[in-house]
């Protein structure tokens, strides 16, 4: 596997908020996190990108102090998780991938509960709860039980809880999985607002568009290892000539009866369906497009529009691993 590092120090003289050094986590003979190292500086939004099962969530759990590493260390605001876990955790806000809320309670009851456990009381607790709910757009639903929330609202509240205590570093683990576009947009805007206000963010996702939208520096993980990291533009350049061919995809209107995995097998190329669109990675560049379009027509797919996209993180992942990011 290619190890591509284009890291550049952007300290600006300030010490890092997070320094991950040679982190290792094993489960029996499996190595879930394999010598992972990266650094995040104050005010940065750092993206950790990788397919499902790449080791992102385990890495975040190690950083949050929820798992004990088998090797390496994590330094949060100068505090080692090995020697000063509680001190380090005071600077962390964790937004887990799963909705970690109590459905029987209202939004504000959930917030108050976790705020109290965070050590917030009285007026300060009230102020921070209100601020966080406002940031995620749930002020009007504060008194509503979480079990009546939509998936997107639950995800937004999940984030709001992570903001309690005004952490210096916010860990966001796949915060937009399985939600509607409107909530997704709301979450992305909220993360941007936080970053603009100076909060440092570690954002993990397997949606490369989100990482490209939010982050200036990224790391790409696969099989527990970081296979590329650095400023976004420089990581993108690792894709070489690969491009993405995007074609409208409407199976309900007669675009064949194949799904993405069948098309992948027929075309022998990485193929995905995203938002009524086929995305086909062309490893050798746009010159492959006519051949692929002919193949689609032969399969009964009406190609009534197309777009060829410049190299992005998806194509980088393909170039480095030979697999599509969402495999």
């Amino acid at each position, binding site marked *: 596997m290619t190890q591509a590092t284009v890291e550049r120090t952007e300290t600006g003289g300030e010490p890092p908020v997070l320094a991950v050094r040679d982190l290792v986590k094993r489960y029996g003979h499996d190595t879930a996190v394999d010598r992972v190292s990266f650094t995040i500086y104050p005010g940065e939004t750092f993206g950790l990108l990788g397919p499902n099962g790449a080791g992102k969530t385990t890495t975040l759990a190690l950083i949050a102090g929820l798992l004990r590493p088998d090797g390496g260390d994590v330094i949060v605001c100068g505090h080692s998780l090995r020697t000063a876990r509680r001190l380090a955790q005071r600077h962390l806000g964790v937004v887990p991938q799963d909705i970690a809320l109590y459905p*029987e309670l209202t939004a504000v009851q959930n917030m108050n509960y976790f705020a*109290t*456990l965070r050590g917030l009381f009285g007026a300060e607790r009230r102020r921070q709860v209100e601020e966080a709910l406002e940031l995620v757009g749930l002020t009007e639903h504060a008194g509503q039980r979480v079990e009546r929330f939509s998936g997107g609202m639950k995800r937004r509240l999940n984030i709001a*809880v992570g903001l309690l205590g005004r952490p210096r570093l916010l860990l966001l683990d796949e915060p937009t999985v399985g939600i509607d576009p409107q909530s997704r947009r709301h979450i992305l805007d909220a993360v941007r607002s936080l970053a603009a206000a100076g909060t440092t963010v570690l954002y993990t996702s397997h949606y490369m568009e989100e990482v490209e939208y939010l982050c200036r520096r990224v790391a790409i993980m696969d099989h527990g290892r970081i296979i590329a990291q650095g400023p976004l533009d420089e990581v993108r350049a690792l894709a070489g000539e690969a491009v993405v061919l995007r074609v409208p995809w409407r199976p309900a209107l007669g675009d064949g009866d194949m799904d993405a995995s069948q098309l992948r097998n027929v075309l022998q190329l990485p193929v995905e369906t995203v938002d009524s669109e086929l995305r086909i990675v062309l490893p050798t560049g746009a010159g492959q497009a006519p051949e692929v379009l002919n193949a689609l027509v032969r399969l009964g797919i009406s190609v009534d529009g197309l777009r060829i996209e410049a190299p992005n993180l998806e194509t980088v992942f393909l170039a480095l691993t030979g697999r599509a990011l969402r495999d």
Partner: protein
Amino acid sequence: MNALKRVWTIAATALWRGYRRPVNVLVGIGLPLFFGVVVSSLFAGSGNETRAVVVDLDGGPAAQAFVKGLEATPMQVSRSTRAEAEEQLAAARIPLALVLPEDFSASVAAGHPHLELLHGPTYEPGGLVERRARALAASLATGRPAPELPVRTVPPRDMADADRYPYLRIVFGFYAMFALSTLMHQAYELHEERENGTLARMLALGVPFAEVVAGRALALWLEGAVQGAVMIGATAALGAPWLGAGLPALALSVLATLVCASGLALAVAGVTRTAAQVNNVAVLGSTAAAMLGGAFWPLDVVPEYVQKVGHLSPVYWAMDSLREAFAFGGPIVGQAQALAVLVLMGVLGAAVGVTGLRRLAG
């Protein structure tokens, strides 16, 4: 201070969340209430405790008071002639018979009660019937504890509530059973917290795992206390004389039962991994404990070896603590053994539970 606040917050929120689920209210309060008020009445109406056969050759006031007192301990007293009693003993159908001789009332009045005890081959000296008979006879003679007799050091209770005691015994047995069952079910919520990610969230906030477990244990204890208050309060409102042995005696019985039930519930949470396992242990465990402990029927009617096995049941000791208080006066003195066993069971259970639950902390 912050640690205490966190533990209390975890406990209070867990309790509040629990009561926001209708099914929990039904299973945790409604069902015990139904058993306490309705089913217990049916069970209590089906007969008193059994065992003691009395041959009353005296028939005087002291003999009548003796029999009434024996029934209040409680026992089902059956009167018999001497010949019948001897025949039953010979056939090993009863272990012993108490004979109140013709001079029983006179001997009581003289301060030296004369009491005979007939027994067969299965009789064990110093058994419950004998001890209570001695205590009753002594108290009838002196009106106070009889130090020369190797029996309880407190006199029997006022017999005014004696006829209601079997009902109280059954209600308290059901209470112990439901406390075990409900708390074991609720203890599984620690696993749910892990599955739902809220446990990880609390730990990521820097809350020590020990505080999470302490908060959940306190929630269990509070839930059991609410259950007890509802069952005892409702039946008291219907006239059950719960305070017959005094409030401290009742409170000690309830507290020790709760310590035991919450400790055992933690143990179940510590050794199980799935909701199905917890359900099986909670339902089978609490039902078996209730059956062996004598909640459904007096232990006197089951074989002796089953009675001995019943000593392993927390329900037995919960009921024993109440019975001893009512029969011999509370608090503490008569209850001490039962209370100690209940607390010991609870502490051992909590130790097993906390050890097992450490795996949840990751």
